[in-house]
C-alpha cells in the first residue's frame, strides 16, 4: 500500500508546528472571508492569495488547504443564516437550512452541516489519497495529445453540458480562452493581443480576473439591485446541539451525500451543483418526514452539505493528479500552485511528494480543526454576518484592489480589474456562468501548448489525435458532451410541440 506510506509521510509534514499554524490560520481566514455574504470559496481563495506571496510554497499550500475547506464551511453558514448562497453549490443547503433557521432551529442546521462536512470531507479526502496515485499511474502514460483531449472534455463539461444554456456557457468559455491568448506565445516568443502595452506581455493574471469577476462584479450587481431585495439575517436561537433524532435523521444523508459528491467531483464534470441537487432530491424521496421538506427538513441540509464538501475534495483528484481544474475554486488553487512555478500533475507527485502529501494530510487536519473550532465560534461568525452591507462591500472592494496592488501595482492591472468587474456584472445580469471564463483563461494556454507539442512530435500530422486510443476516446466523449445538450433541447421542443 504505497498510498499509506505516502500519506503517513504527509502527516509527518503536516503536523510540524509551523504547518499546523498555517493550517489554523488558513481555516480561520477561510471561514471568516467565506462567511461574508456573496463571497464563495473561489473568491475566498482569490482574495487571500496575495497574503501567501512571501511564504514558502509548502506552508502556503497547506494554508490554501485550510482556506479551501474553511471557505466552504463559511459559505454554508451564510446560506443557512441569510439565505444568500455565495455559490450555486450552496443553493440546496439554503433551501432547507434557511427555513430551519427561521423556525428557530438554526443551531442544529449549522451543526448538521458542520458535522456532515467533516464526515464527508474525511471520507472524500481518504478517497482522494487512494484515487490520486492510481490516476497518476495512469496519467504517466498520457502523451500530450491525450492531455489535450482531456482538456477538451473539461472545457465542454464545465461550460456546455451541465449549465442552463450551452450557448451562454460556451460564450463564457471562449471569452476566457480569448483572454488566455494575451501575452507572449511560449513557443515562438511572439506577442499576441498585447496592443503594444508592455504590462500585457505577461498575460492576464488569473487572480485579477477572478477577483474582478467575482468581487467587483458581485459588488456592482448587488449595488445595482439593492432597491429590489433586502437580506435578512436570522439570529441563531435555541440550542446549538442536535437532538438524538437529529442525529438519526442526519447520518444516512451524510453518507449518501458523500457518495454523490466525491465521484461526480472527481470526474472532470465540473461544479458541485449536480451532486448537491441529486442529494437533495434523493433525501426528499427517501425521507420519513416528507411534510417537513420545504419547511426546514434536516435531511435537506445534511445531504447536500455533505455532497458539497465531498465534491470539493473530489475536484482535487483531477487537479492534483492531472493538473486539471474543473471548478472556479480549483482554478484558483491551480493559480496558487503556479505562483510558485509548481504545476500539479504526475511530475509533482514524483518530484515534490512532501508537498502533495503534506497538502492531502493537511486537508484532514483542516477538516478536524473546522469541526472543533466552528461550532464554538459560531457566535463570532454570526457577528461577521451582521456587518452593515455598505461597510461589508466597501471592505471587500478595498481588499480586492489591495490584492491586485500588492501583486502588480500598475494602472493597467487595476484598470483590468475594473473592466473584469464590469464584465462580471454584465454576465450576472444576463445570466452567463462565470466559472468557464476562469477555467478557460487558466486551461486555454495549457491546452494549446499540449496540442502544439503533440503535433510537433507527430511532425504536423493531426491524425495523432485519433491514433492514440486514450485521446480518441476522450475526444469522442467531448463531442458527445457537446452535442448532447443541444440534441436534448431539440427533443424537448419536439415533445412540447406534440403536446
Amino acid at each position, binding site marked *: 500500500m504505497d498510498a499509506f506510506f505516502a500519506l503517513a509521510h504527509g502527516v509527518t509534514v503536516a503536523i510540524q508546528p509551523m504547518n499546523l499554524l498555517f493550517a489554523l490560520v488558513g481555516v480561520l481566514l477561510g471561514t471568516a472571508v467565506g462567511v461574508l455574504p456573496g463571497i464563495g470559496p473561489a473568491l475566498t481563495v482569490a482574495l487571500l492569495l496575495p497574503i501567501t506571496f512571501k511564504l514558502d510554497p509548502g506552508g502556503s499550500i497547506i494554508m490554501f488547504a485550510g482556506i479551501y475547506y474553511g471557505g466552504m464551511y463559511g459559505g454554508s453558514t451564510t446560506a443557512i443564516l441569510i439565505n444568500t448562497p455565495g455559490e450555486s453549490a450552496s443553493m440546496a443547503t439554503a433551501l432547507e437550512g434557511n427555513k430551519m433557521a427561521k423556525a428557530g432551529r438554526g443551531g442544529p442546521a449549522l451543526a448538521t452541516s458542520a458535522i456532515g462536512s467533516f464526515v464527508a470531507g474525511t471520507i472524500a479526502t481518504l478517497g482522494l489519497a487512494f484515487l490520486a496515485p492510481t490516476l497518476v499511474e495512469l496519467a504517466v502514460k498520457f502523451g500530450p495529445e491525450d492531455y489535450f483531449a482531456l482538456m477538451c472534455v473539461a472545457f465542454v463539461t464545465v461550460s456546455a453540458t451541465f449549465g442552463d444554456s450551452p450557448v451562454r456557457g460556451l460564450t463564457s468559455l*471562449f471569452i476566457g480562452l480569448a483572454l488566455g491568448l494575451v501575452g507572449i506565445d511560449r513557443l*515562438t516568443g511572439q506577442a499576441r493581443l498585447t496592443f503594444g502595452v508592455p504590462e500585457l506581455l505577461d498575460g492576464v493574471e488569473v487572480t485579477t480576473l477572478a477577483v474582478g469577476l467575482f468581487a467587483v462584479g458581485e459588488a*456592482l450587481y448587488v449595488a445595482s439591485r439593492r432597491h429590489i431585495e433586502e437580506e435578512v439575517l436570522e439570529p441563531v436561537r435555541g440550542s446549538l446541539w442536535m437532538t438524538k433524532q437529529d442525529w438519526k435523521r442526519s447520518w444516512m444523508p451524510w453518507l449518501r451525500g458523500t457518495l454523490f459528491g466525491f465521484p461526480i467531483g472527481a470526474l472532470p464534470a465540473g461544479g458541485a451543483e449536480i451532486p448537491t441537487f441529486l442529494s437533495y432530491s434523493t433525501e426528499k424521496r427517501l425521507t420519513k418526514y416528507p411534510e417537513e421538506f420545504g419547511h426546514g427538513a434536516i435531511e435537506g441540509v445534511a445531504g447536500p452539505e455533505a455532497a458539497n464538501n465531498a465534491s470539493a475534495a473530489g475536484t482535487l483528484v483531477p487537479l492534483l493528479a492531472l493538473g486539471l481544474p474543473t471548478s472556479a475554486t480549483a482554478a484558483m488553487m491551480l493559480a496558487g500552485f503556479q505562483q510558485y512555478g509548481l504545476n500539479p500533475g504526475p511530475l509533482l507527485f514524483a518530484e515534490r511528494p512532501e508537498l502533495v502529501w503534506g497538502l492531502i494530510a493537511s486537508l484532514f487536519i483542516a477538516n478536524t480543526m473546522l469541526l472543533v473550532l466552528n461550532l464554538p465560534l459560531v457566535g463570532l461568525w454570526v457577528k461577521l454576518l451582521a456587518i452593515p452591507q455598505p*461597510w461589508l462591500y*466597501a*471592505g471587500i472592494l*478595498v481588499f480586492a484592489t489591495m490584492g491586485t*496592488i500588492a501583486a502588480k*501595482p500598475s494602472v493597467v492591472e487595476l484598470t483590468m480589474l475594473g473592466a473584469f468587474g464590469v464584465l462580471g456584472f454584465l454576465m450576472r445580469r444576463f445570466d452567463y456562468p462565470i466559472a468557464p471564463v476562469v477555467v478557460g483563461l487558466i486551461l486555454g494556454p495549457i491546452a494549446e501548448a499540449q496540442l502544439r507539442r503533440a503535433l510537433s512530435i507527430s511532425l504536423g500530422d493531426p491524425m495523432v489525435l485519433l491514433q492514440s486510443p486514450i485521446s480518441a476516446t476522450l475526444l469522442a466523449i467531448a463531442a458527445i458532451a457537446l452535442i448532447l445538450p443541444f440534441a436534448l433541447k431539440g427533443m424537448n421542443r419536439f415533445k412540447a410541440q406534440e403536446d
Partner: protein
Amino acid sequence: MSTRTPGRVDKAGLVIALFLLILAGLIWQDLTSLQLSSVYGLGPKAMPVVVSVGLVVLAVGNAVTALKGGLPARERLDWKPILFILGGLAALIACIKFEIGFIPATAILFAATSAAFGRRAFLVDLLIGFVAGIVIFLLFSKLLTLTLPMGPLERLI
C-alpha cells in the same frame, strides 16, 4: 420590475452578439501580424484562429437567442451605485498613477462604495477607510513585507 414577453427581440442580446463579433475581429486582426515560425505542427496562429472562429459562431448563437427573446428576464437597473463604485475605482487608479499613495486611495474607494450601498455619511466613511488603509498598509508592508505604492503619507510611517 419589467417583465419581457418571450418572442420579442432582445436588443441587449444583440449588443452582446455584436461585442463577441468585435472581439473575434480584434483577435483576427492581431493574428495577421504574427509570423509563422514553427517548422512542424501548429504555429502561434492556430489557437487565435480557433478562438476567433468560435466567437463568430457563438455571436450567431447569441443573436439567434436574442431574436427569439430567449434571454432571461431582468429587473430594472439602478445605475447610480454602479457609477459610484466605478468612480471610486477610477479615483483609486488616479491615486496610484499620481503617487498620492495607497492609504488615501483606499479611503476614497471605501467611502465611494459605502455611499453606493446607500450610506449617507461620506466623511465618517472616509475616516474609516483611512484608518483601514493605515492598518492594511502596516500589516502588509511591515509584517508580510509586500511593497505597496507609496505617497507622502506612507513615507512618513
